[in-house]
């Protein structure tokens, strides 16, 4: 059986939450250095930073910056959910509820961000 089919057949809500959390974590770890590098331009090349910030209006950069914020929101809520799951002695039903709440909250958060950016 091919790997993809094997994985999909075992998927379930908590597992998806795990994958999402992991992918967002990786995404952050990849993009954050880039973000830092851009900010550091304030010191080294303020003009370039301005030019860059101007570009945030432009598609690609906007997408990248928005992506970062989005990932951060997803990952943070996922992480808080996870820690609540681990440290608060909840019953399974409450856990699914918490997972649902976390999902809902990051949806709202990202909608909100989408509007703001």
């Amino acid at each position: 059986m091919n790997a993809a089919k094997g994985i999909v057949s075992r998927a379930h809500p908590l597992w998806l939450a795990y994958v999402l959390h992991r992918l967002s974590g990786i995404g952050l770890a990849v993009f954050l250095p880039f973000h830092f590098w851009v900010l550091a331009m304030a010191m080294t090349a303020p003009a370039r930073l301005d030019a860059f910030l101007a570009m945030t209006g432009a598609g690609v950069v906007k997408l990248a910056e928005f992506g970062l914020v989005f990932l951060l929101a997803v990952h943070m809520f996922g992480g808080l959910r996870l820690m609540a799951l681990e440290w608060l002695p909840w019953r399974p039903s409450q856990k699914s509820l918490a997972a649902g709440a976390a999902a809902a909250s990051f949806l709202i958060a990202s909608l909100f961000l989408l509007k703001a950016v």
Partner: protein
Amino acid sequence: MLSLRLYVLQRITALLMAPLVLGHLAMIIYATQGGLSAAEILGRTQGSVLWHLFYGTFVLAVSIHAAIGVRAVVHEWVGVKGVVLDVVMWATGLGLFALGARAVWAVTFA
């Protein structure tokens, strides 16, 4: 391959970052209301010890946090282990810290 110590460190840094990230997000939303410029950012942050501490803490926490996170992912999904794994973790942490510190320095003091 997470030991208790790394686990605790990762959770503590995560807890630490949560309010910082929320603050940061709020700040972005507020700041982007009227467009963004270097001067604006710098005007707000430059010389402020508070902002320095705010972002400094974040950078420190995120370096530790992400390094440990990357360690787990790279071990489980790429199969890296042993000394190489430690090297990857430290490189991630130090790299992030260096870049982050430079950025914080840039926006607060430089």
